[in-house]
């Protein structure tokens, strides 16, 4: 494995990393935690560019947004006070589910997005938080919505660009805002069969002001269930609505069958985990479900 690798680079900044990527002419591979790149074992790689020294490990505020550098590890997201405070600690809690403790000490947030897996555990919580990614290439630096990035993450579209950071806008944080992350895998540390992130706000009369639902491993890329979200607005969150939303979500997903689960099972679990996520959100606000 990796027998053809001729050079291993450790660029000290993004500009140098981009220059190396450019001169690699498609045969260079960016690596950070390595937990996906190594397992994939692409034998055609001739140059490895380790970006963990390029100054991209940080969690900071920029205006009202939280900005997370691409090489920030899952372990760092779990332990960060800022992340534990943001949206009820949604990102911290989701990061705890990203593989074993050993993997989480290496695996990075940028890698989890750039690998473009439909099952990426951090994608659904970031989608409900309306996150964007910042892409840099030799000529420009631009921000694009995470959903748009994920749709093309496994294409050549971003081959000459580097994902440098994830931007999470200030989440709605009024009274009654709650967030939940749910995951089902074969074991505690396995890849998701299905994962769901949700957020909602109930008004003083128990009506849904807004709801956001995202699902992973049930479509070509992690997705928002916009139909279900729309249906919830202004309604009282009770068992009948939960059943209706569960059914709507099951219609919106388009899962495949693979070694881990059948499409039918994934569809059913989408509905179950969505209901659990919404229940968890409402339980926190003392709603009588």
């Amino acid at each position, binding site marked *: *494995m990796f027998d053809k690798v001729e*050079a291993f680079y450790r660029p000290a900044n993004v500009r140098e990393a981009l220059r190396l990527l450019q001169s690699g002419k498609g045969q260079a591979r960016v690596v950070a935690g390595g937990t996906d790149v*190594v397992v994939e074992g692409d034998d055609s790689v001739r140059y*490895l560019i380790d970006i963990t020294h390029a100054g991209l490990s940080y969690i900071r505020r920029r205006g009202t947004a939280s900005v997370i550098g691409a090489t920030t590890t899952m372990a760092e997201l779990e332990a960060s006070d800022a992340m534990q405070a943001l949206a009820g600690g949604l990102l911290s809690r989701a990061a705890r589910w990203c593989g074993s403790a050993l*993997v989480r000490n290496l695996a990075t947030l940028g890698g989890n997005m750039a690998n473009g897996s439909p099952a990426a555990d951090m994608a659904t919580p970031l989608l409900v938080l309306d996150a964007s990614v910042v892409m840099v290439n030799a000529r420009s630096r631009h921000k694009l919505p995470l959903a748009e990035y994920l749709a093309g993450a496994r294409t050549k579209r971003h081959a000459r660009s580097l994902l440098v950071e994830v931007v999470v806008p200030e989440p709605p944080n009024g009274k009654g805002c709650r967030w939940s992350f749910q995951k089902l895998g074969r074991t505690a540390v396995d890849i998701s069969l299905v994962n769901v992130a949700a957020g909602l706000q109930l008004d003083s009369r128990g009506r849904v002001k807004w709801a956001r639902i995202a699902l992973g491993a049930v479509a070509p890329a992690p997705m928002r269930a916009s139909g279900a979200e729309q249906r919830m607005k202004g309604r009282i969150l009770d068992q009948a609505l939960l059943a209706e939303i569960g059914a709507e979500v099951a219609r919106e997903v388009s899962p495949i069958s693979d070694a881990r689960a059948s499409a039918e099972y994934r569809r059913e679990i989408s509905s179950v985990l969505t209901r659990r996520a919404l229940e968890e959100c409402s339980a926190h606000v003392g709603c009588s479900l």
Partner: protein
Amino acid sequence: MKNMELHLTVNGESLNWTIAPGELLLDVLRRQGYFGVKRGCEKGECGACAVLLDGMPINSCLMFAAQAEGRQILTIEGVADGGKLDPMQEAFLDHGAVQCGFCTGGMVLSAKALLERRPDPTEEEVREMLAGHLCRCTGYRKPVEAVLAAASKKRNTARRMKPVAEVVR
């Protein structure tokens, strides 16, 4: 393929090795004779290849050796102090948590790192940590007991060693 130099510290010893740029840390450590670092699944699932990287447990099968430049590695070979076993190793023996031993090195290293971070872990935290280490012999009950016992013993020792005045206060 051009070789490159790697400077790192393994078990307290400062070393310079020649490696191929695409080599994995697991392969290089074993080539250098650290056979306590086990080759298991090579996919980051089983934890048999675990080492501590600057005190933090990682799967050495998932890391390029070149990424260990300037870092401190602890393998199971470096855990005992000469002929004297580490208290975590003693606890594994006392609790019958070792059978074939293939997973043991990784478990001991992860457990040591856990206690550095959480001196008083809950059983759930211990189980969560062990979730990264597959064992097909003893199962997990005995390792869990061993880690909890080692934690409690370590806390008691630390308490005994405090100056008297501090304990009284």
